[in-house]
């Protein structure tokens, strides 16, 4: 039995939102029908997205780093959303482990979204049904697409190749290998849903300097008196003042 899923490399993700945008684009024009978007260019754009990228600052200033966290359905192995659905509209496919919603059966009771600890299901008020990431099931098996494009739209869009799609239970796949090599982890394992999507942690980079580099630096410092001004006011003002 396979379990298709996404492996997301937090070390490579630059938070460009390309995955989210391409996901929206494909799922608005793809075979699953449109995704609602209210006033997309207005002051209060509201719509359904299957994938959202959130930004966190980790650490205490000045030792901080930024983490971008793309989050979509984890296609959990023990999916609580499937268990609570009163109509069986939410189901997990045996052949590839993808969790899907049958829009014809969904009554829009929203109960499944309460049962998901990750908050990745979004209710489409226009269609009156619950929606979420389909793992691009309408792409990965799509004979109308060229073979190398039979991958999730978000994976294809990622400029840094931070998203890897594959069978996480098959030792021959990149996804499987990367999880082991890079110590891939699951979000919120405490929720005990056995999520299938994995995240590869950020790496710590250390720069090795040789003596020459240091000499150059010292030299530069003497030459161009770099003055560090204390930070006052807003950033905009700071940049504006000479």
């Amino acid at each position: 039995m396979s379990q298709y899923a996404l492996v997301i490399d937090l070390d490579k993700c630059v938070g460009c939102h390309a995955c989210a945008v391409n996901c929206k684009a494909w799922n608005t024009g793809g075979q699953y029908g449109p995704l609602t978007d209210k006033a997309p260019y207005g002051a209060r754009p509201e719509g359904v997205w299957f994938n959202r990228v959130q930004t966190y600052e980790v650490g205490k200033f000045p030792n901080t780093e930024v983490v971008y966290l793309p989050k979509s359905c984890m296609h959990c192995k023990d999916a609580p959303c499937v268990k609570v659905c009163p109509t069986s509209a939410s189901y997990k496919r045996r052949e590839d482990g993808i969790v899907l919603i049958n829009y014809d059966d969904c009554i829009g009771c929203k109960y499944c979204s309460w049962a998901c600890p990750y908050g990745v299901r979004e209710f489409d008020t226009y269609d009156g049904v619950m929606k979420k990431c389909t793992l691009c099931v309408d792409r990965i098996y799509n004979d109308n697409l060229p073979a190398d494009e039979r991958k999730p739209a978000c994976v294809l869009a990622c400029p840094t190749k931070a998203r890897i799609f594959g069978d996480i239970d098959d030792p021959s796949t990149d996804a499987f290998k990367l999880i082991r090599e890079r110590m891939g982890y699951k979000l919120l394992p405490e929720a005990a849903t056995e999520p299938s999507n994995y995240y590869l942690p950020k790496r710590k980079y250390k720069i090795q300097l040789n003596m020459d580099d240091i000499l150059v630096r010292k030299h530069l410092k003497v030459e161009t008196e770099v003055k560090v001004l204390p930070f006052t006011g807003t950033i905009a003002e700071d940049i504006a003042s000479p």
Partner: protein
Amino acid sequence: MHPEMSLVILTVFSTAGQGIFIFLVVMNSIVPESLSGSYIITAALASILFQFIGMGASFFHLGNPMKGWKAIMMWRNSWLSREVISLSAFVGAASLYLIIYITEMNKSILDIVGYAGIIMSIGFLIASSMVYASIGYIKEWANAFTPATFISLGLTCGAAFALAGFYLSCHHSEIYPKINLLLIAMTIFSFILKAMAYRFNANVYTSLSVSNAIGINDKHIKLMDRGTPYAHYNTKEYFHPITEDQSSIQKNLIMIVTFLIPLLIWMLIGLLLNINSHGAAFLAISGACVMLLGLLMERRFFFIQGNHFQNLYYGNYKKSSIDNPLVR
């Protein structure tokens, strides 16, 4: 969680309506001579009407109400499915009870159908509260107080309505004070239960923080961008902005309206019973209505108090790692 009015009305009216029915059936099998025909018919009708109000409201919650019947499919694993089935079965049993009474069939058949209705009702009360109590990611809901308060408050409010109708249409009888005493006892019991539930919820916590949510082990994690320029389902459905002060005001108000005012009224009725039964009936009806209003407030606040794990990702989870005794 977002307090959805349709669910508030569903849970309050259906449980209260079942309380009326349970009270009616038990009284009719124990002291049938004290009940008037008009009372039995009105009480059964009121109980059914309450179910229809609840069911009608629940349709406003659904995105696809026309397909609502499909909710009966997964009774094997979904509490929501069981809730729908037991509610429909209860309405069937209550209607049958009414029909049997009107057509003056055998009294023992009437009692059997009545008790069958009570069994459906117990099934519904359990299923309906387990819909909430089984969501382990909302700590304020996933505890024994949820079914306990749902059942006890629903039955008490139902009993209040049943009693009001009883004073209004039944022959004067020596069981009046006993019923009044029972109602006072039920109200006090519900009051204690609810107070305990609020106390429990005030101290409920999880060892989780945003650090667990994103899988990065650091005490200082700040959300910089929610990944959305404006509110959306995940920032609205799981979260209702309320300050600590507002919530304690609401809690006090709920305790006063749901329990203390009705309790005063029941006591007043106790004093008034022998003097003026019409006055007592009027008081009983107003008491039941006040309690129903309180119950609507209580259920609305029940939703507001629910704090879903997914709020951790949006910086909306109220118990942050700072006031969490396990993470320092």
